[in-house]
């Protein structure tokens, strides 16, 4: 005969506790009476009604307690007061804590800003979530190509025929040409692009002048960016003015001036001409007729709620219904979200561009991940530092904790107090870090080549993340000390006035080991990166890259006047040799590849790179000829020279005029027949030693050197080996020679060694970033170590006094105190070495040519860590050892 339990529980919930006894008693007694009279079932129902009858203010209102019940506000005020007293009394430790956290947070914020920028690429367009880039996948017997390009037909017809697609934007970068302001004749060679009007409708490009949305609708219109407008017109308010483009009779009318692209945009064009301009050209229909080609980079704007895969499948179906593919070839399309273009395009060829147009910049996902981990580690190290110092200091506060407990503080009160303390320290550090970050940002921006800022105009998400990080840091660094310190029993706190806790000590040691492990790994990483970059810049590349001056061919006259120009250049006294080539080693533009096989051989064609060169190439670049002979003169136009790799590929060991056939070539995209329409039949006349014509990340590929007037690719550069003196004079004389041939030309030149160094510019950037982060982690770890050493010395002051009295030398005492910490650093080394070795092996394997990891990297990093730790600790140790024992022993 039990009344409903749930009703009781409910009653206990709302009824004031001091009334529970009489109320429940009444209810139960009445229940018994009723159950006897009416039966259990009805008694239960009445019981519920009775319980509900107690829902009255008289029973709900709680009785005021007889003890004072401080409000939260009062307690928080008290916590803050105690916090400030503690912090100001221990200035050294406060400084160490704040400095460590500030350093950590600064690194974290800087890296965080960098990462945020990398991860929000191309998201400034309002419809960015619905914009997708068309990716063509082409498979064939010799080809496997994934390229960010589509044919005009696919781009145009998809919009008309596929329901999911709302709009289409397409752009083709046709190459470099001269743009002129007809009023003042300012002329610049710029990358020229053509795009349809969808380009301005799908994307939201901000304008400085004019309006962008309808900018590319009319023929003979052009959109330029602010920076180009400034160069051409010295003002950006130029809508309605005309620009002339070489090779085009009609002037182009400027319809809009766009703001310069933000740094986190993948687009880098600075002028776009409307596609309408071309539409009535005779060639246009011909050029765009092939469904399977790769004319344009296409962006589709999908409708709201359109299914991505369905849209891609429909595009592929449309293509296959119309395209005429070679036997054995298959082709399909996929759609890549706009936001993925920056970081997820590693294996996608940047298509629809002339070979002299630079690729769109890409980010490397791996490094984004690495830096994210590094940022978290730095913050973690700073938190650990705080935990370490606070727990170490705690025994000095045992009296305080004891008294608080004796006066009735609960554990939760103590936890809150320590958390308040850590939150205050973290908040102060955050404010300082924001100041430091703003001081460092100009330099940081310069070297990361970004426009980051941390201020009122910063994206609210950054502040949100920063606040999260603040809360996380404060709670993480405060949690361990507060939980640990509030746990001790009152008796042991007040009796011993000391916290003896073995587990606590070993955890602290573990944290020091952890900090130093990370620091050592970072030092080793930095050394390896540094060595690898030095190796890359000083490696024997198979040719001499020093003092090679490369002049670009930017006009037809300069190209056709090759023989005259070479002759004139070599007359300049400071020029030793001149060669003309289609591409130069260390090229950023696409080097053409060809299909090649020995004549009369029925095997699949082999793939090789091809450079058009002249007879001076070997001499000028100092490439060694191994077998056969060099080119002589124009009679060699159907001769080729192979590099060793290509010779091996074609099984040619002795040069005997073997015949080869070259039927097709590609410029980064698909293979197509040569421009002559016929297979190029060539004779092998020589073999040169391998030389690096790409970054040393790549293995040296097979290379065919053809003569300058080969049918595959024309010449594009004059390369001169010059003397190191009077470079400006040499350049002026060259310009004079070129101006005589073509008065409109613009001199464009670079030095090959600088060009090559660009391959490793990103690595250099990463190295610098790593060096600073490594320094910061070491610094933070040292702050922590310094604090711990100070504390250890304080704790053992009596012991040191006694030892000194008994005759220990200062050296003995210093060693005694340093020994413990050295042990920790040694353990950290032991953990860090294999870790760093593994990570660095992974990184180096990315390079086809790389340094070996040598033992001294580890030795240097290890001893550096030891020396730094020793220097930190021994300062305190020596100070403690020098104290007069009378002082330390006199009072108890």
């Amino acid at each position, binding site marked *: 005969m039990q009344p409903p339990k749930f009703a009781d529980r409910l009653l206990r919930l709302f009824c004031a506790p001091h009334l529970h006894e009489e109320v429940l*008693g*009444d209810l*139960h*007694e009445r229940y018994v009476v009723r159950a006897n009279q009416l039966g259990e079932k009805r008694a239960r129902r*009445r019981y519920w009604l009775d319980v509900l009858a*107690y829902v009255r203010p*008289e029973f709900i209102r709680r009785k005021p307690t007889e003890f004072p019940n401080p409000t939260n506000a009062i307690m928080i005020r008290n916590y803050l007061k105690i916090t400030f007293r503690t912090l100001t009394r221990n200035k050294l430790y406060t400084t160490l804590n704040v400095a460590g956290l500030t350093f950590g947070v600064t690194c974290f914020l800087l890296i965080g800003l960098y990462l945020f920028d990398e991860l929000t690429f191309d998201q400034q367009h309002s419809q960015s979530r619905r914009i997708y880039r068309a990716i063509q996948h082409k498979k064939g017997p010799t080809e496997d190509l994934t390229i960010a390009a589509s044919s005009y037909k696919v781009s145009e017809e998809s919009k008309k025929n596929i329901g999911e697609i709302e709009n289409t934007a397409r752009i083709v970068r046709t190459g470099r040409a001269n743009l002129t302001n007809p009023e003042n004749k300012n002329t610049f060679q710029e990358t020229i692009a053509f795009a349809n009007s969808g380009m301005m409708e799908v994307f939201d490009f901000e304008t400085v002048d004019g309006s962008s949305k309808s900018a590319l609708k009319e023929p003979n219109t052009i959109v330029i960016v602010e920076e180009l407008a400034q160069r051409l017109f010295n003002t950006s308010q130029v809508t309605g003015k005309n620009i002339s483009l070489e090779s085009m009779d009609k002037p182009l009318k400027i319809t809009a001036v766009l703001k310069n692209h933000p740094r986190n945009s993948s687009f880098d064009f600075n002028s776009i001409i409307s596609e309408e301009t071309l539409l009535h050209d005779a060639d246009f229909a011909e050029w765009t007729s092939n469904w399977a080609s790769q004319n344009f980079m296409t962006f589709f704007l999908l409708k709201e709620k359109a299914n991505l895969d369905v849209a891609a499948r429909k595009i592929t179906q449309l293509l296959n219904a119309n395209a005429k593919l070679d036997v054995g070839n298959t082709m399909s399309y996929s759609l890549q979200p706009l936001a993925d273009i920056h970081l997820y395009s590693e294996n996608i060829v940047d298509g629809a561009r002339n070979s002299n147009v630079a690729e769109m910049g890409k980010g490397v996902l791996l490094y984004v991940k690495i830096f994210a981990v590094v940022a978290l580690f730095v913050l973690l190290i700073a938190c650990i530092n705080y935990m370490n110092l606070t727990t170490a200091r705690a025994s000095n506060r045992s009296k305080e904790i004891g008294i608080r407990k004796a006066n009735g503080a609960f554990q939760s009160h103590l936890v809150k107090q320590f958390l308040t303390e850590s939150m205050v320290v973290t908040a102060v550090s955050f404010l300082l870090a924001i100041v430091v970050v703003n001081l460092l940002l100009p330099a940081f921006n310069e070297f990361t080549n970004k426009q980051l800022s941390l201020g009122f105009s910063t994206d609210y998400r950054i502040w949100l993340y920063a606040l999260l990080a603040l809360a996380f840091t404060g709670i993480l660094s405060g949690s361990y000390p507060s939980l640990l310190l509030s746990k001790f029993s009152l008796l042991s706190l007040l009796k011993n006035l000391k916290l003896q806790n073995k587990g606590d000590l070993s955890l602290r040691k573990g944290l020091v080991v952890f900090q130093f492990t990370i620091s050592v790994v970072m030092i080793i990483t930095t050394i390896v990166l540094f060595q690898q970059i030095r190796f890359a810049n000083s490696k024997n590349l198979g040719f001499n890259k020093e003092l090679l001056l490369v002049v670009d061919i930017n006009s037809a006259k300069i190209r056709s006047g090759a023989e005259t120009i070479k002759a004139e250049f070599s007359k300049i006294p400071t020029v030793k040799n001149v060669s003309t080539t289609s591409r130069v080693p260390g090229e950023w533009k696409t080097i053409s590849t060809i299909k090649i096989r020995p004549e009369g051989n029925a095997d699949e064609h082999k793939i090789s790179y091809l450079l058009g060169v002249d007879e001076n190439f070997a001499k000028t670049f100092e490439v060694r000829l191994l077998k056969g002979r060099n080119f002589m003169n124009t009679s060699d136009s159907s001769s080729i020279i192979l590099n060793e790799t290509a010779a091996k590929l074609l099984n040619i060991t002795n040069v005997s005029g073997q015949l080869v056939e070259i039927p097709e070539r590609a410029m980064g995209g698909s293979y197509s027949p040569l421009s002559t329409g016929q297979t190029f039949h060539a004779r092998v006349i020589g073999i040169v030693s391998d030389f690096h014509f790409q970054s040393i990340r790549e293995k040296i590929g097979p290379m065919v050197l053809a003569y300058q007037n080969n049918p595959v690719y024309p010449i594009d550069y004059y390369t001169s080996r010059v003397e190191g003196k009077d470079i400006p004079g040499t350049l002026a004389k060259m310009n004079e020679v070129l101006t005589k041939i073509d008065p409109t030309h613009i001199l464009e030149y670079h030095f090959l060694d600088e060009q090559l160094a660009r391959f490793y510019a990103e690595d250099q950037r990463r190295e610098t970033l790593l060096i600073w982060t490594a320094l910061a982690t070491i610094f933070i770890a040292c702050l922590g170590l310094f604090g711990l050493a100070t504390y250890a010395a304080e704790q053992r002051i009596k012991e040191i006094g006694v030892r000194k009295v008994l005759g220990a030398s200062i050296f003995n005492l210093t060693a005694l105190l340093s020994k413990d910490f050295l042990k920790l650093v040694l353990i950290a080394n032991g953990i860090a070495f294999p870790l760093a070795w593994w990570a660095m092996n992974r990184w180096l394997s990315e390079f086809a040519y790389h340094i070996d990891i040598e033992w001294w990297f580890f030795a240097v990093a290890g001893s550096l860590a030891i020396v730094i730790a020793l220097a930190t600790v021994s300062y305190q140790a020596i100070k403690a050892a020098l104290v007069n024992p009378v002082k330390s022993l006199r009072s108890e």
Partner: protein
Amino acid sequence: MRRSDLGEFEEVVLLAVAALSPGAYSVIIAEELEHETGNSVSTGAVHAALQRLEQKGYLTSHLGEATAERGGRRKRLFTVTALGGRILQDVRAVRNRLWDRILPNIRLEWS
């Protein structure tokens, strides 16, 4: 004398406490009232009235002994104070006087 601070239900409860004295507590009072009036009366209502009466000074209370049917819980017993007694007297006197003014020796005829 302020009559207005004694509600009808309170008056009945106060009377019941006086009648059931010295063992008056909410369960018996509720049972008694239920028995007398025929309407169901919850202990909650009675308890609330008792609390109010105690607050006004008409009742005092103390905890009594525990019983098994109460699950070992003690009950709160109420007794009428002198003030409570006088109030009851006053109420009764007012009513009596009014009753007396109705013609005493004839039969009541309700229209």
